[in-house]
């Protein structure tokens, strides 16, 4: 009688927990494995799309188109993506990361062949406040850098008109500030590299 109660008290909970754990792990692991390729494809699609966006290569956002355009026009060398633009010139796209308000902001910055003029900017990942800082993902914000050379300084939203000004986002001063810093770091790095060549 006593041994049975010892089993029920000490061993049975362990066995029960072990069985529950094994069932749960089997479930989640099989779901993970069955969606593994899909998840990987999604990640690759996001990365390729942001590279094409930063190089200002137009696309319709469909995974097939993005994959095809990437195959046709992009080559990677030492972390720099060389993208052949629609007009035949080369664009140089590099990834940059900097601290945002809530977490890191990772962006792709594309330069035209002179390594100074911006071809485009796109967001890889960000965790800013929805409706405020997260508006850096909106086209009006990312497209404002096209054909400018920087380095930038912030002006009030909707008032940037000279080449070294960039629109800040109202209500997201810290996000705008760190975005400007990332941009200026990208510009400095690109110009020193081209100057050294």
């Amino acid at each position, binding site marked *: 009688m006593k041994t049975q109660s010892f089993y*029920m008290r000490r061993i*049975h*909970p362990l066995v*029960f*927990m072990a069985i*529950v*754990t094994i069932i*749960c792990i089997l*479930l*989640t692991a099989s*779901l*993970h494995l069955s*969606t593994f390729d*899909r*998840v990987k494809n*999604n*990640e690759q*699609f*996001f990365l390729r799309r942001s590279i094409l966006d930063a190089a200002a290569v137009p696309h319709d956002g469909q995974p097939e188109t993005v994959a095809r355009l990437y195959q046709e026009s992009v080559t990677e060398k030492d972390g720099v993506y060389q993208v052949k633009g629609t007009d035949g010139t080369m664009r140089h796209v590099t990834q940059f990361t900097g601290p945002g308000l809530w977490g890191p902001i990772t962006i792709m910055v594309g330069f035209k062949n002179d390594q100074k003029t911006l071809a485009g900017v796109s967001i890889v*990942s960000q*965790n800013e*406040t*929805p*409706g*405020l800082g997260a508006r850096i993902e909106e086209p009006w914000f990312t497209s404002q850098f096209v054909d400018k050379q920087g380095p930038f300084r912030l002006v009030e939203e909707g008032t940037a008109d000279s080449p070294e000004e960039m629109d800040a986002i*109202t*209500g997201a001063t810290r996000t705008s500030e760190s975005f400007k810093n990332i941009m200026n770091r990208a510009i400095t790095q690109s110009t020193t590299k081209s100057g050294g060549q």
Partner: protein
Amino acid sequence: MAAAGMKKKTFLAPLGKDNPVFVQILGICSTLAVTNKLENTMVMVLGVMFTLALSSWTLSLVRKWIPSRIRMMVETMVIATYVIIVDISLKAFYPEMWKQLGPYVGLIITNCIVMGRVEAFALQNKPTLSLIDGLASGIGYGYVLLIIAFFRELLGTGSLWGFQILGSWWTNWSIMVMPPGGFFMLAIFIWIAHEGFIKKNKEETHV
């Protein structure tokens, strides 16, 4: 008849007088965190409803075999499994949404409503009833969040579900989409709910 009445009662309680958010004040962290965009809120609500209903059902199904001293570990394990299923499914099939919600999906595990309903209800009741209770609690949680999100997104950005609703004459109340806006809206909601229909119930119980 009694069983049907019980089911109806179980279903209706979390929608009104036993609402998890504005009566039991549970699940407040996610109420504050995800309600600044209607779209994100909807996904969060569906995730919580799914987890709540199925973990209540599963645990109710095995409630007689769970050794009582390790029941919380078993509960957490089952809840976590369902949350991971939601997370992986979003990641694979709605990656854009998954990118936006980020860590919030994983945090469903710590939503007190899930554990609370399992402990308070599912471990004492039959699976079907527990499923109804979980689902109803999810709906009770969901509609509060959606109402709050409606006002926060509309006042904070002038848009709903990402579409611009209010014209350029509208000045965005930026504070509404920031954390303080969540506190204000939730407090106002709880106040209205208590002044409105909760008060009557209180008076009844006092008499």
